[in-house]
């Protein structure tokens, strides 16, 4: 048997019902141009089940959690849900897979049950609301903004559901509100209740052992929940351990060394106090330091390597990789070494560009020698230099501060003579060209397509007078973001070489959970609509 893939792409668009269908309706009904009005223009029927029915263009996506619409009545009618393929010559609730609330006598109708008393009768001037809750698969109705209550079971399970109405008398007409206007009923409150119910259910979920093993016991069923004592639930101690591990590995991954150290220390103090409750406030705990020192040194080396890349100091980064993490440079046919060398070439070119700019500025200044040194412009230049946008956490450890050495250089700039600066330019340019030639002879005949591509674009930047001003891929290549990306790559490569995941487990936990919820929603599990992760986890309360 071929296994069909169950994966549903996330970009599948969820279309909501917003108008009556021009096709799927009884011929006695006419639809207004905006798709919201229906009127009955056939002969009146006296049968209690014959009617002219219509449904909306789109079905209701269960991933929306709760769907609700209201209908304002000019004369008698009936609102309901109907499944796909239902005939339009009957009132909803008389056909299989349809459910309805009958205005004539207030009964609720579903095909598998005869009508039973539900609400009050309704008629002209009333506004009747109809909702489906996909977390419970029950419908609910409202009359003039007041909830009548939940009704029917298993509504819309395993079939597409459409809002639907049936009209019976000549001149009957209705106007639907699919959310185009404010509803009479406080549906937001209703939804919030359901949201809370879902989260209460989630927060009652025990942390089970499968978190650690990555697989669940086979044959998990409803029956086994109630009285199976062997369902393995994590103990409090184990849960704490999982949390600590997630947080600690996250801190180490991103190089938050001081935080990691402080956390480890505080936990050790707490554990010691817990085991000897008599001396409750003795912080003087001996550090069993060898293990954490090793962690510290590792974080520091990795952080300084990554920071060197961020600062554009590629030589330092390469040296430290050669000494501490040689395999990082070697994997994939020395791909990382190549990338770093390319970046070094970029940095050399950027340096020449920078000097060229200064040279130009100096020449202009000499041209108007009698004027004062333009303090304001100088400051503006400095400021621009300081304002490099670096990362999302600008004071973080994997982040460089603006390069301080630039400042004294800048201050002395006015003292530098025109000859000195052009000498400097000369030698910088020579260095860049020499380095480019080395790259060229080393990689010209490299067969790897990735290497060839990058090699060509990298050398290509010399064609520009100022590559930072060039658009497109050139500007991208010389941008600071390219440094950040490379630094990130280096960090991940080091972690990978140590057998650690390229992404902290904490991040994977979030991504994995989010993917589960998305797939649940797409598979029609209504409760998934309420598992709003960004709202629960990232928004301030």
């Amino acid at each position, binding site marked *: 048997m071929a296994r069909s*893939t169950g994966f549903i792409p996330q970009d599948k668009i969820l279309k909501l019902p917003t108008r009556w269908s021009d096709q799927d309706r009884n011929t006695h009904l006419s639809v207004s141009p905006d798709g919201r009005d229906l009127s009955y223009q056939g002969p009146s029927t006296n049968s209690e089940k014959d009617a002219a029915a219509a449904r909306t263009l789109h079905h209701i996506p269960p991933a929306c959690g709760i769907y609700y619409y209201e209908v304002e009545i000019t004369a008698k009618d009936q609102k309901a849900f109907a499944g796909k393929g239902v005939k339009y010559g009957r009132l909803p609730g008389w056909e299989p897979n349809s459910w309805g609330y009958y205005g004539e006598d207030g009964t609720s109708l579903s095909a598998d049950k005869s009508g039973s008393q539900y609400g009050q009768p309704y008629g002209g001037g009333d506004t009747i609301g109809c909702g489906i809750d996909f977390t419970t698969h029950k419908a609910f109705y409202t009359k003039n903004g007041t909830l009548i209550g939940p009704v029917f079971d298993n509504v819309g399970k395993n079939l597409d559901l459409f809002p639907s109405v049936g009209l019976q008398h000549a001149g009957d007409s209705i106007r639907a509100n699919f959310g185009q206007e404010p509803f009479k009923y406080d549906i937001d409150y209703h939804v919030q209740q359901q949201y809370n119910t879902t989260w209460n259910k989630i927060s009652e979920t025990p*942390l089970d052992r499968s978190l650690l093993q990555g697989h*669940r016991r086979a044959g998990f069923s409803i029956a086994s929940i109630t009285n199976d004592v062997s369902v393995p639930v994590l103990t409090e101690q184990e849960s704490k351990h999982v949390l600590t591990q997630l947080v600690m590995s996250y801190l180490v991954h991103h190089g938050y060394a001081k935080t990691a150290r402080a956390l480890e220390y505080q936990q050790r103090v707490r554990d010691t106090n817990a085991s000897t409750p008599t001396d409750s406030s003795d912080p003087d705990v001996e550090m069993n330091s060898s293990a954490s020192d090793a962690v510290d040194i590792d974080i520091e080396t990795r952080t300084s390597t990554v920071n060197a890349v961020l600062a554009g100091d590629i030589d330092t980064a390469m040296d430290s990789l050669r000494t501490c993490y040689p395999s990082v440079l070697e994997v994939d046919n020395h791909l990382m070494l190549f990338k770093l060398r390319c970046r070094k070439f970029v940095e050399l070119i950027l340096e020449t560009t920078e000097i060229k700019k200064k040279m130009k500025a100096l020449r202009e200044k000499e041209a108007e020698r009698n004027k004062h040194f333009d303090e304001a412009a100088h400051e503006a230049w400095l400021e621009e230099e300081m304002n490099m946008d670096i990362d999302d956490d600008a004071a973080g450890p994997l982040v460089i501060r603006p390069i301080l050495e630039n400042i004294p250089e800048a201050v002395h700039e006015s003292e530098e003579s025109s000859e000195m600066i052009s000498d400097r330019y000369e030698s910088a340019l020579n260095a860049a060209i020499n380095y480019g030639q080395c790259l060229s002879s080393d990689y010209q005949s490299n067969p790897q397509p990735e290497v060839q591509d990058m090699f060509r674009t990298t050398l290509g930047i010399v064609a520009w007078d100022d590559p930072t001003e060039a658009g497109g891929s050139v500007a991208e290549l010389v941008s600071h973001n390219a440094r950040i990306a490379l630094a990130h790559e280096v960090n991940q490569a080091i972690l990978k070489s140590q057998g650690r995941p390229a992404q902290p487990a904490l991040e994977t936990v979030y991504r994995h959970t989010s993917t589960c919820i998305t797939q649940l929603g797409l598979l029609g599990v209504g*409760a998934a609509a309420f598992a709003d992760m960004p709202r629960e986890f990232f928004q301030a309360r």
Partner: protein
Amino acid sequence: MPPKSSIRKEEWEKSLHEVQVTKSDLNRLVMDYLVIEGYKSAAEEFSQEANLEPPVDFESIESRMDIREALQRGDVEDAIIRVNDLNPEILDTNPALYFKLQQQKLIEYIRQGRIAEALQFAQDELAPRGEESPEFLSELERTMALLAFESAPNAPSAIAELLSPAQRMKTAGEVNAAILESLSQGKEVKLVGLLKLLCWGESMLEEKTTFPKLNVMDGSLVERG
């Protein structure tokens, strides 16, 4: 029932990659853990290293931990003073919580065998409050029943449990939650909520389809079968 479909690992990984989440989002989750769990100096360091606005005053983390410790070692008086130092409104606006602290104080008197003081305290402080609500009254009666038994092992478990460490933890937990609420912080570590959601989501999805499971300890995906 249609046959269960399955989701391949490559598709799953691609989808993981598409999830919108930033480093600063995750940093805030970590900060929430450090704050709620009471790791003050780690929270301070993290605020510096990750350049993150602290969600609460760091001193409040420490006093919250001091209060928890005081209750765990049975010093209710100290805990009450500290709660009032932190924010007098916490107890003023929450009579049930204040009653629980008073009840805990009574329990500690009885535990220490200070019977005369226990009786005096019950009459002066707790009895008037017992008149306020039947719930308070029945709790007061349950606590006073401790006096009827010479040693805890002879008492019925519903009464003996008042002397257990779990009772102290329970009181400490409720006070902790009330303080967090007064600071507009959640009662539960958000990371715990995330793990619960993971368990909930995986088990629901498992009824519908087969997909790679996650080992949270190392972040690896495990495919079964």
